[in-house]
């Protein structure tokens, strides 16, 4: 189906080496026949001309028995772009650390083609699968199809927001925690609190397997769970020698950058004063084959991080270690 709106400004975003969301939206309209994608392009072009957004504030919509998971959205120019008159978001809880089978992806695509706009976010910032642009009357049948295929809605509003985590032990040697299992268990424990907002404000759990914190939990989770270890960093001295032979300047790039100066390199071997190590990960990050976290692993839990600058952003504060 041809696109019915002229989009000279958006067309500029089809140029360049980075993948273009404009090209993809056009494909959804032209090849996929999505009226919603067509009118979304039209409205976005208008925003690019006028330099303001065109989505109205709020709108309480949802699925029966839930108080969250759907964000109501309506255009303020429905006479120009009728297919985005309703443009609600459905947040769908992602599998922890976002592994999918191709069948699961196609199932999601089939459900969304049937009930919605063909436009998604893979994923939203919090971690959910996002279906963008649902009409009110399609919410309930879409939800029924999702649950029939093993998917459920995520969190929104003053509720537990969908927990998320890093890739963890599924593909990382540094994971000191079963990040997916923690995330899954928290998610299942708090289903009611996620789907029926009853808390003073939003609340986020995020779990990272090590202090590199690949899900940025320390910056944005009310409760941040970060893997760590209490015993000694494991050293493979043979691999230390291999690094030296391959030309890595161990003194300059590993030893001198240790924040507590607890690591030394003499006679071709690395020694670590583990009592003075703060588990910062730098040496391990640089010498992945020679150094690994210890085996007495657990979690540091930090409380109180948040992003909104309104009252000043906050980072998490360590509460206790186990």
């Amino acid at each position, binding site marked *: 189906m041809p696109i019915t709106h002229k989009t000279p*400004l958006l067309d*500029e*975003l089809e140029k360049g*080496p*980075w*993948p273009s*969301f404009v090209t*993809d939206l056009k494909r*959804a309209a032209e090849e*996929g026949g*999505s009226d919603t*994608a067509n009118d*979304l392009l039209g409205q976005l072009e208008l*925003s*690019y001309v006028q*330099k*303001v957004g065109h*989505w109205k504030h*709020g709108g309480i919509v949802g699925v029966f028995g839930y108080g969250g998971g759907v964000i109501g959205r309506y255009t303020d120019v429905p006479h120009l772009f009728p297919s985005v008159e309703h443009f609600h*978001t459905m947040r*769908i*809880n992602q*599998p922890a650390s*976002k*592994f*999918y089978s*191709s*069948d699961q992806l196609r199932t999601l*695509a089939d459900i969304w083609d049937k009930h919605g706009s*063909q436009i*998604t*976010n*893979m994923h939203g*910032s919090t*971690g959910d699968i996002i279906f*963008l642009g649902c009409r009110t009357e399609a919410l309930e049948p879409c939800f029924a199809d999702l*649950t*029939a295929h*093993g*998917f*459920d809605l995520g969190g929104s509003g003053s509720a537990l927001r969908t927990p998320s985590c*890093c*890739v963890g032990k*599924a*593909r*990382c040697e540094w994971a000191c925690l079963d990040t*997916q299992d923690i995330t*899954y268990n928290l998610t299942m424990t708090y289903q*009611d609190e996620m789907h029926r907002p009853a808390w003073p404000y939003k609340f986020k759990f995020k779990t990272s397997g090590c202090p*590199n*914190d690949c899900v940025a*939990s*320390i*910056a944005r989770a009310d409760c941040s769970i970060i893997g760590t270890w209490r015993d000694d960093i494991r050293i493979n001295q043979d691999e230390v020698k291999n690094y030296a032979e391959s030309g890595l300047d161990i003194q*300059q790039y590993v030893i001198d*950058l240790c924040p507590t100066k607890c690591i030394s390199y003499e006679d071709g071997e690395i020694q670590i004063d583990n009592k003075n190590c703060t588990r910062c990960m730098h040496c391990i990050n640089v010498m992945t084959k020679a150094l*690994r976290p210890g085996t007495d692993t657990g979690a540091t839990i930090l409380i109180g991080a948040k*992003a909104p600058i309104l*009252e*000043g952003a906050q980072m998490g504060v360590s509460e206790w270690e186990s």
Partner: protein
Amino acid sequence: MAEEKQERITDIGPPKYDTAWTPFIKENYGKWLYHEELEPGVLMHVSETGAKLWTVRIAGTRLMSTLHMRDLAAIADEFCDGLLRFTTRNNIEFLITDEAKLQSLKDKLKADGHAIGGTGAGITNIVHTQGWIHCHTPAIDASGIVKAVMDELFEYFHDKRLPNKVRISLACCLNMCGAVHCSDISILGVHRKPPLIEHDRLLNVCEIPTTIASCPTAAIRPYNFEDEEGKQVKSVQVNNERCMFCGNCYTMCPAMPLADPVGDGVALWVGGKVSNARSMPKFSKLAVPFLPNNPPRWPETVEVIKNIVEVYAADARSYERVGEWAERIGWEEFFKKTDIAFTPFHIDDYRFAMTTWRSSTQFKFTD
């Protein structure tokens, strides 16, 4: 109706995390020994069992059609036994266990126009928000700025290396759905004008006490007046001198919009990080208080960001993140080297003033 309710499935949660895992992932779970970055975008993980897993990472657009999803699924079927994953930063990872397929997977991804990269000491994908695509409070667009910035920084995603990784994030307003405040470079949409008050509908759509309480600077107060027709109107008014344009009142009260084409724009922040490596996690600090909202390619914003990256690339030591570099050379030097003006806007005289203002004599008296 009652029967329908009984059949309804609710509160089942997400698919369990391992439903998509192949036997290979399950067998090597928790057994990973080390990994190597073979080239930007290609990782090799080696298990204690001796098994190897190759990961090829490509840039995702986050905003994605179901047609695009089906393409990704088809590639996973052809090369990866149907397995793929998405990263926290909107990248897509294809995982293969047969090294013989690595080159053909890369060739296929390139042929389909995908961008391979985003690992290690370079610039990976930008975490971002919805902007004009879906949000009701944005000061700027999101996807368009991300596209414009990453087009310009593409070489750092694809092959060019930096002293360390540079994490860029974008939030289209101060509500900070993008949680950009601990990034090497943050792009933040800001407003510069106080809200307009729609007195004729405010009482119908807003609660006046919650609206007043929403203001962090106590700039909103009740305002009762008689309109031109002699009708008593209950509303609020804003002390504009106290307003810091945060938009929290608009979140509470839709009759107080503050978006406008000239007042809204981009602020840039630098030097944050979430990793605990070497130095502690840090907040990003203000670099540029305002750049114009200039679609479709935001050239002013792109130019400043590219310059920061290039100066960092030339001047930082290996493994220094942007914030670690700026702290070593001193922030005075950061502003000088990047040719960014230091203005009164950079001084926080609000919440953090007592803890962040200089309390030492350790100046570098450079000219």
